């Protein structure tokens, strides 16, 4: 049987959704033989591959790098899953949205910095004016809200997708 090519991505989030994924404990052994993990924070692969069946995205779109990544990911993915409140609502990263990016950078790098006060201009990707949930930027096929979504919900979603079905989460919606 051909393995499903799965990727997981970490944009602007805390990695708690990835932790919750791992929280499915031994059930991960049920899933492992059915998938080929082609890209993930857990995999040492620098370039997002072509022809990915399922990509699970944690985090909101906050920087130009995130935007560039998610567009490339969308183009190379059949089914895109927005995992967790940051990906679905922008959540905590989006709390900066009522403020100007300059004000946000000044708060972080000048006002609250004890030493070496300056706003970095290279290495750190420029912030977007507004943090966006993924579906405001590219089409999302499956939404799994929650902060984080429970391991049960993630297991259900992955199992359904591996069976070739789009999971119906209407009974399991949970924010926060």
């Amino acid at each position, binding site marked *: 049987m051909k393995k499903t090519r799965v990727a997981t991505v970490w944009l602007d989030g805390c990695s708690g959704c990835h932790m919750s994924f791992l929280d499915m404990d031994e059930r991960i052994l049920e899933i492992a033989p059915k998938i080929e993990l082609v890209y993930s924070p857990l995999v040492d692969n620098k370039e997002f591959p072509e022809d990915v069946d399922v990509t699970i995205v944690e985090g909101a779109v906050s920087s130009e790098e995130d935007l560039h990544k998610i567009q490339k990911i969308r183009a190379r993915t059949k089914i895109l899953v927005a995992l967790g*409140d940051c990906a679905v609502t922008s959540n905590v990263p989006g*709390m900066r*949205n009522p*403020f100007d990016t300059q004000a946000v950078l000044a708060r972080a790098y000048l006002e609250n910095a004890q030493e070496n006060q300056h706003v970095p201009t290279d290495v750190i990707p420029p912030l977007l004016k507004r943090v966006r949930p993924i579906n405001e930027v590219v089409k999302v096929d499956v939404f799994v809200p929650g902060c984080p979504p429970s391991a049960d919900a993630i297991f259900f979603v992955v199992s359904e997708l591996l069976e070739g079905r789009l999971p119906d989460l*209407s009974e399991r919606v949970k*924010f*926060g």
Partner: protein
Amino acid sequence: MSTPSRVITLTLDDREVGAHTDQTILEVARENGIVIPTLCHLEGLLPIGACRICLVEVVGSNKLLPACATKVTDGMRVITQSERLTRYRRRVVEFLFASGNHICAVCVSNHHCELQDMAVYTGMSHLTEPYRYPKLRVDASHERFVQDDNRCILCQRCVRVCAEIEGAHTWDVMGRGIEARVITDLNQPWGESDTCTSCSKCVQVCPTGALSIKGMAAAEMKKRKHFLAQYWTLKEEES
């Protein structure tokens, strides 16, 4: 003088039920075990039909009507559940989420929030409209309470409980449409209000984390609304 209440019959989702003309569609539905979701409505306060979650279809009416604020009439045919209503109700919840800054994960009312419950009830997994991210005020000037406009859905329960039950009328609404906000006195800081009795009724009836007890961490704020029923029971016994 209002006309005396009469006994009538009407149809709720193909069920014929008896009712009094002074009852609302919502009251009759609840008496008959039919669930109509509500958000701004709270038993014991006057209904105002602010949130539109309880919209129902009434045969012969070309618009949807709020069940909490619509009186029943003889022969009325009401539909409380339909695909159209589900769609509208979910849309209402979406707009409430989009118009404020509802960050469940860091909210004092996380897991004890009526707005959050309504998202679950209507199956809202995400928004189909962009978020507004308005810049809104947090007023922590009161000694014991906090008002966070980011989490306010303008249900006006605070306004009503303060005016109708406490009799202080500290709260009211300022501005119109999307700019509307609940304010204390003449838009003075809550802590400087001359009329507020610090009774906390507004905090207890608030469906979200917009009004909370100071010092609560995320998910710690549980509201206690039972005092309303007790109040009305006592009132009834008195009269």
